C-alpha cells in the first residue's frame, strides 16, 4: 500500500480502518539465501538494499525482540558526514547522500531534517583540528564551513559565547547534517524491504551459528533452525556474543551510553549543536523535546541504563553551553549498548567464517550510517567482497596496524 496525501484523506473519511500492517509479521521458513541477524536499522537496511540493489529477495531478518528497539530506537538521531579521515568521511557522505533521497525511495517519511550540525571549539588547538577536518571534507567535495564567533552567535543565539571557563572561539558547521526520526528509519526500511519480499521475523533470537568446513550453514534460533546460504550480522552491542557463537573474536566492547529528552517546549534549538569543552550534544525533536547526551558511562555494560555520574556531566555541560537550559526539565533518560571498537571506526565486511559478514563496531555514531552500512553490507554479501567504500573497515586492520582513529584516543576510550 503506497502512502500518499490522497490515501491519507480517503482513509480519514473511512475511519482509518483500511490501513494495512507496515510489514508482514512472518514465521520463519526453514531456509533462506541470506539471513540477516538483527532487526535494527542496519539489519533492515541491509535486507532492503540486498533486494533493491542486488535482486536478492529470499532474505530473512531475524530480530530477537521487536524491530527498531535496540540502538536504532534509542539514539540521539544525529546524521552527518563531518569526519576527518577519508575512509570515514567518504563512507558517511555516501550514507548522507542516501539519507537525502531516502524518503522518496522508501515511500516513508523518516523526517530527515538537514538543519545543520555545528561543532563548537574553544581553543586554538581545537580550531586547528576542526580546520583539518573541514578542509579534508571540502577536498573530497563535502560541505563544511568554519564559523567565527559572530557567525556562531548568529547561527545559534542561545550559545553562551563567553562561557566563563571555556569561551567559544568558533565552530565547524555542516549544513547538510541534521537529524532523522529514529523509529521511522527502522519502520521505513522494514516496510520497504517487506514490500520487496524480505521476511521480517520478530521474537526470533539467534542462539547458535552452525558452520561446516569454515563456512556458515545455519542458525539455531528460538524459533527453530534456519538454514542460510549467507549470514550477515548487524547486532550492534551484541556483536561479541554473536561472533562468539561463530567462533571468532571481535575487538569490540559493549558500553553503555545514556541519552535524555526534556519536556516538550516551543522551538528553541534549531540545529544540532555539540559542545567542545565537554561531552555534550543537543537537538530538538519535532515534538519539542530537547534530545541530548554526552559521553559513555565508561564501563562495559549490556544493560540499557546508566548511572548518575554521567548524568551529572551531561547536565553541567549543557548549562555551560546554553545557560537558558537550566530551567528546563529533563523528562526521561535511558541507555543504549554501544559497540565500541579500539579505534572508534566501524567494521563492515568479511569475517573469518566464509559466508558470514558483519556490520558493527558503530561506537557513538552508527545511526547516521544506517543507509550506508546497509548498502555496503548488502554489496559485501552479494559480491562476496567489500565495496571500495567499506574496504578499509576490516576486522583485521588491528592486526595490520591500519587504524582509523579519528580522535587519536587510542584503544578503548576509557583507557585515556
Amino acid at each position, binding site marked *: 500500500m503506497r502512502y500518499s496525501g490522497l490515501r491519507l484523506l480517503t482513509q480519514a473519511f473511512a475511519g482509518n480502518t483500511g490501513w494495512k500492517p507496515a510489514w508482514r509479521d512472518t514465521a520463519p521458513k526453514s531456509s533462506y539465501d541470506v539471513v540477516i541477524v538483527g532487526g535494527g536499522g542496519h539489519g533492515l537496511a541491509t535486507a532492503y538494499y540486498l533486494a533493491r540493489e542486488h535482486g536478492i529477495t529470499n532474505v530473512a531478518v531475524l530480530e530477537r525482540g521487536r524491530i527498531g528497539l535496540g540502538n536504532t530506537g534509542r539514539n540521539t538521531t544525529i546524521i552527518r558526514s563531518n569526519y576527518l579521515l577519508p575512509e570515514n568521511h567518504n563512507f558517511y557522505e555516501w550514507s548522507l547522500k542516501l539519507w537525502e533521497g531516502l524518503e522518496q525511495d522508501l515511500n516513508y*517519511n523518516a523526517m530527515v531534517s538537514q538543519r545543520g550540525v555545528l561543532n563548537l571549539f574553544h581553543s586554538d588547538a581545537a580550531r586547528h583540528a576542526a580546520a583539518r577536518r573541514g578542509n579534508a571534507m571540502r577536498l573530497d567535495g563535502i560541505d563544511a564551513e568554519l564559523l567565527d564567533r559572530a557567525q556562531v552567535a548568529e547561527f545559534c543565539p542561545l550559545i553562551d559565547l563567553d562561557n566563563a571557563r571555556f569561551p567559544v572561539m568558533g565552530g565547524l558547521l555542516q549544513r547538510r547534517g541534521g537529524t532523522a526520526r529514529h523509529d521511522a528509519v527502522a519502520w521505513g526500511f522494514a516496510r520497504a524491504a517487506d514490500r520487496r519480499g524480505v521476511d521480517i521475523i520478530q521474537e526470533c533470537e539467534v542462539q547458535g551459528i552452525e558452520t561446516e568446513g569454515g563456512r556458515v550453514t545455519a542458525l539455531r534460533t528460538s524459533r527453530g533452525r534456519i538454514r542460510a546460504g549467507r549470514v550477515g550480522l548487524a547486532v550492534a552491542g551484541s556483536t561479541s556474543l554473536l561472533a562468539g557463537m561463530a567462533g571468532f573474536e571481535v575487538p569490540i566492547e559493549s558500553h553503555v551510553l545514556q541519552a535524555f529528552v526534556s519536556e516538550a517546549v516551543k522551538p528553541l534549538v534549531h540545529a544540532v549543536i555539540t559542545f567542545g569543552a565537554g561531552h555534550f550534544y543537543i537537538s530538538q525533536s519535532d515534538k519539542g523535546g530537547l534530545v541530548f547526551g554526552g559521553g559513555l558511562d565508561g564501563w562495559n555494560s549490556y544493560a540499557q541504563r546508566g548511572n548518575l555520574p554521567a548524568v551529572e556531566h551531561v547536565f553541567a555541560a549543557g548549562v555551560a553551553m546554553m545557560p537558558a537550559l537550566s530551567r528546563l526539565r529533563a523528562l526521561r533518560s535511558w541507555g543504549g549498548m554501544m559497540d565500541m571498537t579500539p579505534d572508534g571506526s566501524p567494521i563492515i565486511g568479511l569475517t573469518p567464517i566464509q559466508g558470514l559478514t558483519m556490520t558493527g563496531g558503530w561506537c557513538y555514531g552508527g545511526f547516521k550510517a544506517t543507509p550506508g552500512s546497509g548498502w555496503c553490507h548488502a554489496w559485501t554479501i552479494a559480491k562476496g567482497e567489500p565495496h571500495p567504500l567499506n574496504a578499509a573497515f576490516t576486522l583485521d586492520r588491528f592486526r595490520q596496524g591500519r587504524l582509523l582513529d579519528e580522535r587519536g584516543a587510542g584503544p578503548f576510550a576509557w583507557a585515556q
Partner: protein
Amino acid sequence: MSQPFRTAAGGHVDRAATLEFRFDGRALQGHPGDTLASALLANGVRLVGRSFKLHRPRGIFSAGVEEPNALAELRTGARREPNTRMTAIELHAGLEAASQNRFPSLRWDLMSLVGLLGPVLSAGFYYKTFMWPASFWERVYEPRIRAAAGLGRPATAPDPDHYEAMHVHCDVLVVGGGPAGLAAARAAGAAGARVMLCEQDFLFGGGLLLEPAQEAWRAETLAALATMPEVTLLPRTTVFGYYDANVLGAVERLADHLAEPPPHTPRQRYWTIRAGRVVLATGAHERLIAFPGNDRPGVMLAGAALAYLRRFGVRPGRRAVLFANNDAAYEAVFALQAAGLAVPGVVDARPDSAGIAAARARGIAVWAGAEVCGTAGGATLRGVRVRHRGGTGTDTLLACDLLCISGGINPAVHLASQSGTPLHWNERLAAHVPGAPVQAQLSVGAAAGVTGIAAAAADGARAGGGGIPLPDGPAQDATVAPIWEVRGRGKAFVDLQDDVTADDIRLAHREGFGHIEHAKRYTTHAMGTDQGKTGGLVGAAVLAAARGVPVESVGLPTFRPFATPVTWGAIAGHHVGRAYAPERRTPLHDWHLRHAAEFVEAGHWLRPAYYPGASDGDVWDSVLREARAVRRDVGICDVSTLGKIDVQGADAADFLDRVYANTLSTLPPGRARYGLMLREDGIAFDDGTVARLTPDRFLLSTTTANAAAVLAHLEFHLQTAWPELDVALASVTDQWAAMSVAGPRSRETLAPLIEGLDLSNDAFPFMAVADAVLNDGRGEICPVRLFRISFSGELAYEVATPAGHAEAVWKAILRAGAEFGIIPYGTEALGLLRIEKGHVAGAELNGQTTAADLGLARLCKKRGDYIGRALAQRPGLADPARPALVGLRPLHRSDRLRAGAHLVLPGGSDSLGWISSVTRGVALEGWIGLGFLRGGLGRAGTPLHAAFPLLGEAVEVEVVSPHFFDPENQRVRD
C-alpha cells in the same frame, strides 16, 4: 465574589491569609496551602490549557504530579518556566502563571482549527505524507509542525538562580510521606536507624490529608519524627531515579514556593542518596476511563475531586456525577454531596456493589451496569451522556458541571521498577504491583497495592520494624471491575496530554505496531510530561483488546528516570560558569595577573599566553617581541604546569626503560634526557625530560595536559604488570614551581644569583641537573634545582623551586636580567620558538602519530621490551608511506600558513598530509609550519600547495627540514 467555590472551613489551607496571584493576567486570590490548581478552582476557573496536538480545551484533571492537562508557564523573563503542573505548584504571593500552547488566547485559540482535521491527524500520519516535494520538509512542513508542537515557551536568558548538590548516606530511605511512609520512617527511626524521608509534596501526609479523622495521628507522628535526631524529613523532595547499588537521586525544591529564592538560598538541591534499605511508599495514581469527550474541562479524577474538597476546601463544581468501577471512588461523591454539591447521579459499570448500595441509601440515583458514553458542553462540561452497558438503548443526558471518574488505581511502581523489581499483575486492582525486589528494597502501602489508611500504615510500620502507634480506620475496597474504554462517537483519550485516542491505539495495532513499545512510539502514548501516569495502562488495555489478549500479557513501557521531570540546573548544581571545571593556577598566577597576562587553558591550568605590551598593536606584536627577546637576549617563562613525577626505588631505572621508548638506565646521575612514551598500541603518547637525581631516584616531566594520564599509566603497569619492581611514584607537580630562563644571556642572568653551583659550560653543561641555592640579594635564600634543558633552542635553564618560593625566585631573576632586557614570555612565544626549532608538541603528539612519523625513530631502543614496541611494528604503523614530519614555508614569504591546511599537489585535491602547527618566525622571515607529509622530506624541492578550502585559500609552500633554526643544535650547548 472572590473564591466563590471555597468552602467555609476545613482542609489544609489558611483562610486567614490571602495570596494575590495572576493567571493569564487576571488578578485572583488564594490561600497559603493552595496549589495553583486549587486556587484556580476556588475562583471558578476551569478552562486552563490547550492540548498538545489538537488544541482542545483542557481543565484540571488531577490533584498531583500526575497531571496531564493543567500545565502553565510560571513566572516571567529569565525565570519563565514552561509546562509546570498547576496541581503541584504551591501558591505564593505574586505568582504569575499563563496558559500555554494557544493563540491568541486560551478561549479563542486559532490553532484549535486543526481539530477539524482530526481524522487526518491520526497516529503516525506524518510518516505517510509531507514527502513531496522533497525539499519542502525542512522549508515548509517541519517548521510548521515544530511551531505547533512543544507545549510552553522556555526562557532564553541565563537562569538567575543557583543550585547545589548534597550527598547523603542512610540506613533507611523512605520515599513518600503518606500513612505508609510516615509509619515506616517512624518505626525505623524508633529503632535507631539513620532515616531519610522524602516527600514530593509540601505537606507530609499523602492520603491522610484527605482524612480529617486521621489528622491527630498525622500530627502526632510528625511530632514524634521531629524529635528523632537521626531522622531527616525532606518535604518538597522528589526522588526521581533509582539507580544501581541502592543509590537514588532526589531533588528538593527549596525556593519554588517563593517568588524568588532569598539570598544565599539555592533554588533547588540535588541529593544523591546511598541507602542501606529503601522503603517505597509512593502511593498510587488513580486512572482514567477512555470514553468520548473524556477530556472536557470538568472531567476530573474522583480522588482529585475529593482532594480539592477535603485538603483545599474547594468545591470543584456545583453538580457532580461519578463514573466509576470501584467502591473506593464513592467517598468522593459522598463528600461532595455532603459539602452541598448536587449529585444528579452515579454511573457504575458494575451491576451491583456495596458502594452502589450506599449511594442509593444516600438518595443518589445510580445507573448501575452503565457507562458514560459522551460529554456535552463547549470549553467546559455541561452534561454527560449515560447509557446501559451492552445495551443498544438510547443514552440519557445528565446535566452536571463535574464528572468524577475512577477507573481504579495504579500503584506508583516507577521507582520499584527502575530498581529492577519485576512487576506482577494484580487481578483485584487490575494493575501492576511490585514483585520480589532485586535490591535491598521494599514497596509498602498503596505502592504495593495495600489500600486503606490503616492497612497502608500498618504495612509501612512493618517495613520499618514495627512497634509504633497506628491509625485505625475503615478498610478500603479498591477492587475494580475493569472497564477501560467506552466506545462511541467522538474522541476517547487514553493520553490526554499527547492527544492519543483509543482509535489511535487500534490504528497502531492495525498497522503492525501492536507491541506495546511500538504502539507507544507510533502514537506517542505515555510520552508526555506525565509519562502516562493516569492513562498509560488504559492505552495498554485498549491495545490488549485489539490484540485479543489479556491486559497483563501486553505489559507496560519501561519505567525510566525521571519519576517526574527534573530541573536541568539542579543536576548541574554548582558546575556552572567559572566552576564548570575547576581551575588550576600556578604559584605565579597573581604575578601574571598583575602583569596583564592573557591566559590560555591547558588541562585545567591557566597559563599566560602572552603579556600585551603598551605599544603592542595586536597579539603578534606581543608574541614576536617576547620571542625576539629570547633569541636575542633572555626571557623567562612560567612552566610550572608541566607534570612532574618523582620516581624512586632500586628498580626505577629498569622501570623507566620499560615505559619509555628510549633508554634511560644509562643516564648518569646529574643528567637529564629527552624521553618519549608510547601507548601500548605503538602510537606516541607523551614526551618530556627525565632527570636522574641519584642512582635510584628520577624526576620525570610530562606535558601539561597528560600529567594525570601519565601517572595513572605508570601506576597501572607497576601494580598489574610488574608488581615485583621496587618503584615508588609520587606526583610533585604542585610542589615545584618551574621557570624557563632562556636566551643567550640566561647564564649571565642567573650566575650571580646562584650559590653553590658553577654555571660555566664545563661545570654545568647542556642536560646537566643540580641542586643549588638562589640568593636574591634581598634576604631571600631559596632552594632551587637547575636543569640545563632547552625547548626554545637557546642556551636555557629550567629553574625549579618549591612553589612557595616561586615569586621570590621569579622576581629575582627578572631583576638580575633587567640589564639584559629580560621579559616574561607566554605559551604563544614558547610555541613560536619550539616550532622554529622543530620540536614536536601536542599538535604533533595527537594520538595518531608514531615515533617514526615524528622523526623520532632513531631514539627508540633496538633491543628489549618497552610499552608500545611490539605493536608499533605492525605493517600499517611501520609503513614508510605514512606522512612524516616536515617543515613548511610559503614560497612567497609574505603568504600566511594556517594549521589545519592540507598539503596537495598544485591543482590537486588528494591530501598528502596536513599542517599541524604554524607561527610567524623571528629567526626566520614570514610564516613557518610543521606538518606531516607522505614522502616526508623526500618531497623537498617539489612544489606543493597548502590548501585551506574552508577559506578558499591555497598557498604555495616548500618542504624543508623541520629544524628551521640552528639545526646543529649549537646554541643550546654554548
